[in-house]
């Protein structure tokens, strides 16, 4: 295994999906118009509402004026006018009041649903994240396991090669393996009695060197 072909942890499909969901959720703000709402809210916070309420004030003044004018009429006219006003006010604003209340109820329900939906989308995002994290961890584990196996294989090859090289070298040096284990090379020693060099068997090391090697 060379440095170039080291195993790599690749991006899993689950991670790609989770990242795309995060991106989509973010884009949703712009696509659906949430961002515009935020911009409008900030812009409106600076708005001068005096003009907006000016119309209402004019109507209020005119109403007050009408009330004041009533006092100028006879008692009969005034009483009839008051009665008519009461009836008219009650009937004129009824549908608008109902529309306001109905709108408020509808809004509350829809906003509650919307918040629930947002929670659901958030839970889904978390689910995608968790799935991605698990897939990512599996990918890392897979690569690490591969490394452990590769290292073990390399170690085994080196041990065998080392043993083979050692054995080759020792054989070249005259070492041999017999029933009693490893024996050293034969040596020539001078025998005084015979007055010449004689061959002496190599020292026997037994099996321990091999066992130690293992």
């Amino acid at each position: 295994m060379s440095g170039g072909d080291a195993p790599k942890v690749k991006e899993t499909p689950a991670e790609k999906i989770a990242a795309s969901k995060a991106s989509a959720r973010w884009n949703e703000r712009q696509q659906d118009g949430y961002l515009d709402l935020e911009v409008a809210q900030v812009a409106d916070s600076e708005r001068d509402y005096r003009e907006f309420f000016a119309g209402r004030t004019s109507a209020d003044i005119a109403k007050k004026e009408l009330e004041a004018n009533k006092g100028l009429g006879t008692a009969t006219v005034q009483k009839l006018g008051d009665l008519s006003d009461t009836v008219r006010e009650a009937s004129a604003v009824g549908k608008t009041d109902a529309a306001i209340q109905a709108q408020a109820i509808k809004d509350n329900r829809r906003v509650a649903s919307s918040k629930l939906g947002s929670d659901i989308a958030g839970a889904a995002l978390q689910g995608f994240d968790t799935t991605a994290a698990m897939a990512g961890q599996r990918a890392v584990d897979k690569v690490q396991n591969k490394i452990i196996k590769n290292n073990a294989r390399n170690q085994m090859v080196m041990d065998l090669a080392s043993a083979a090289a050692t054995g080759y070298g020792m054989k070249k040096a005259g070492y041999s393996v017999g029933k009693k284990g490893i024996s050293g090379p034969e040596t020539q020693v001078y025998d005084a009695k015979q007055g010449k060099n004689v061959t002496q068997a190599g020292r026997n090391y037994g099996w321990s060197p091999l066992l130690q090697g293992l």
Partner: protein
Amino acid sequence: MATATTARTINSGLTVVGSAYPALNIRSGINSAVKAPSKKSKTPYGDMLLDITNQQQQLYDQLYRPLNQRLIQDVNSTAIVDQAKQEASAVDSGKYIARSQRQQLRYGLNATPQEQEAINYQQQLGGALTSDGNINNARVKQQERNEQLRSELVNISRGISAQAMDSATNAAGAESTRKSTNANIQAQNTAAEKGVYGAIGSMALMALMMM
């Protein structure tokens, strides 16, 4: 949007009755039973989580997101003002004048022509001002309602941002971890490679020396 006229069942779960509810266009497959894990799958529980998560996402996309989109469109609603205008246009001053005249007869009152003129004038002016005031109030109520709704939606928007950022943070973190892991593996691999070359060289030297 179609309107349901009879009781119906959405995906064998939620039963909706009556005609006041809009028909919900939901594809099949949402909120269905969790699929049985494949026998070949090595991560059946992970698959189950993904299945449920996909269903959640589809439910949001098909049911809640369109609702949110409708709500956003509704932020500029003029429904209350429209209602007030409609009501104002329906105000019939003649009706009130006639009512006033019936009341005069009922109570045995005889208004002089000048008094009658004054009463009619008051009725017409009062009617106009009531309508005007009603519309102005409706404008204010509409404004308040729209701003409140927008405020709620902005809060939801901030929630969406937070969710997206959390998820993006997780994705970026995973990417960083992956890059870091790969760099570590590369370094370990290079170290192991040098170790192998060293061992081979050492063995070769040893063999040479023993020859």
